[in-house]
């Protein structure tokens, strides 16, 4: 009897084979790999040791993060590992380098910056023993915990818009380290612009709008959003937002590399920000939102305050239903999902649908008479008090500062 339609072994088709054991071991706590050595020489996992680990709450919990808070070992008192500072992974002699160029637009890494450091980490781990080098234009960011083995401090470039100087920095770093790949965030006028400048200057291929980055393949989106190109990773890779996972697990060393920032004549001069009328900014784009809920009665003060703060106005559903604010200002699941740098909620208790609209907001201030609302719990700064009097006090302060200046 012959067996028909037998599946061909993966290696016969030319695809790279996965090593499921190695993939599984990455996620296992190092302290649980105490089962001795197996016949193939691989370190074995001891499930009992893993079960012995307990969280601070005293409940038995599997800790796969490798950060093991409290370790209970047999027959001895609980020993506390340094939970706050896990020991960083050090690569002394890297086989090759992967250069990552996060934007760090406000001096802090954005979520896309974290993702591209994760993508660089993937590329470094796919070849054996690669190190991730991050170019730090912000100069203040701690990039080691985000997956950078080395950091090049280029903070002398400054916060001004100097794309030519930044390009020269990237090119100098490429000349210095000869990295296998350079990873950029494909983000508009910052990372996306920088990646294309470097590609044109060096006449190197660039994979734009990458959706997936792996050691042997990148998927790059072309033709608007209609098609994808599968190719081996070129030197330059620009990764779209939310297309890679940030680094999880133990931090990296983040050792500083000596670097001299090149001097460049630039054709473009930055004259600084231009004041924009916040009311004209679409809510989804706004950087700073003052939102009103059912607790706001004094609308005149609310509008005055938003003008004085220079904030765009938002509102909860109740307020829009009542006709106190236009519908295009509604924040939440049935309105707009917003992502400002700061969200000040006045008189909003925080229905789940409203909170869904502000999931990604970093800084939330809540002003409300009630202390135990979901919005107060969500807030980074919660103020309990009468909204109207607090808004008036804020206005007085802002006007006093204005007159003093």
């Amino acid at each position, binding site marked *: 009897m012959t067996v028909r339609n037998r599946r061909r072994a993966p290696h016969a088709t030319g695809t790279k084979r996965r090593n499921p054991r190695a993939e599984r071991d990455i996620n296992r706590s190092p302290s649980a790999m105490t089962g001795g050595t197996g016949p193939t020489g691989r370190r074995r996992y001891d499930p009992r040791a893993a079960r012995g680990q307990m969280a601070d709450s005293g409940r038995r919990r599997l800790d796969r993060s490798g950060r093991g808070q409290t370790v209970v070992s047999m027959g001895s008192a609980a020993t506390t590992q340094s939970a706050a500072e896990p020991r960083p992974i050090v690569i002394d002699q890297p086989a090759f380098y992967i250069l990552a160029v996060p934007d760090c637009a406000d001096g802090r890494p954005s979520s896309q910056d974290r993702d591209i450091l994760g993508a660089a980490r993937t590329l470094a781990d796919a070849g054996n023993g690669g190190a991730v080098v991050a170019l730090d234009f912000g100069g203040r960011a701690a990039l080691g915990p985000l997956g950078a083995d080395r950091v090049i401090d280029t903070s002398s470039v400054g916060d001004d818009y100097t794309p030519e100087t930044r390009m020269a920095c990237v090119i100098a770093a490429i000349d210095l380290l000869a990295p296998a790949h350079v990873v950029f965030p494909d983000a508009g006028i910052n990372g996306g*612009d920088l990646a294309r400048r470097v590609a044109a200057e060096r006449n190197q291929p*660039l994979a734009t709008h990458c959706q997936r980055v792996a050691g042997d393949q990148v998927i790059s989106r072309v033709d608007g959003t209609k098609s994808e190109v599968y190719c081996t990773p070129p030197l330059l890779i620009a990764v779209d937002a939310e297309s890679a996972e940030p680094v999880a697990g133990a931090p990296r060393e983040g050792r500083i590399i000596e670097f001299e920032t090149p001097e460049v004549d630039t054709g473009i001069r930055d004259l600084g920000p231009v004041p924009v009328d916040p009311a004209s900014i679409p809510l989804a784009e706004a950087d700073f939102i003052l939102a009103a809920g059912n607790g706001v009665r004094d609308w005149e003060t609310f509008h005055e305050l938003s003008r004085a703060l220079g904030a765009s106005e938002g509102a909860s559903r109740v307020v829009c239903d009542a006709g106190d604010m236009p519908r295009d200002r509604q924040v939440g699941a049935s309105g707009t999902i917003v992502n400002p740098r700061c969200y000040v909620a006045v008189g909003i208790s925080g229905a789940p649908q409203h909170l869904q609209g502000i999931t990604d907001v970093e800084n939330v201030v809540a002003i409300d008479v009630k202390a135990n609302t979901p919005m107060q719990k969500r807030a980074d700064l919660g103020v309990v008090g009468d909204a109207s009097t607090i808004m008036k006090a804020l206005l007085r302060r802002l006007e006093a500062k204005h007159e003093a200046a």
Partner: protein
Amino acid sequence: MKPLEIIVLVSIGRHPVSGRERRAVNDARALAVARSLTDRSHIKVVHAGDPDSPVLAEYLGIGADCIEVLPVPAGCDVMPGLAHEIDKRKPDVVLTASQAERGRASGLLPYALAKRAGLSLTPGVSSIDTTHDGDFRIHQALPGGQRRALAATPPLLATVDATATTVPPFVYARSRRGEIRTLEPPAEMPALDELDIRPARRRPKRINVGSGNQSAAERLRAAAGAQSAGGQQIEAADPEKAAEAIIDFLRDKKVLRPASEQ
């Protein structure tokens, strides 16, 4: 003062829903920006591709007098031909969209052109003005609806995106009146390398769930956006103190400028 000479590079776009060929929206905006800068007779609109495309007449209808077409067959690189055209005419400004709506749409062409023709490049331009000494004052669109002012000297290549001027309405008579002129085919037309192109697959949206040793209840709250930020809470008996705390918080997060700068 001598009027500005401008070249606008236009391409064939695609409607996002119907998939039909149409004028590329941002190329049309680039043409509108050019018209805000100089007289129509000093604007050259250049397209590299098929001279017989019916879409080109749409650009005539929104304010181009004449479109010059470099006949480049599909699958060939348009960059050397366009660079040669820019070298020949020496414009003060080249305007185009930041990336095409179809084809490779990598957004690399403006950068390759700027490098080859020695122009300084400014991306994401929302408006351009000239100053009395012949420089440009540019407003660049930033994320979050903000704008930044830049000063640049000619010759300049600026790319335009969705934040730029609105496109003037389409005038049918003008689209019939205008001229489409075919130029000599460029000397250099290198073939582009073949790519392994497949239809795009939808990728799942990333859900913001925490990992590690959180409890299931915490993960659920994180997914619903209701997790506790662990922030501080003040009982404001005195509204003045509350106001001060809020203003300090906003200054700390750099949302408000510090008092010294105001």
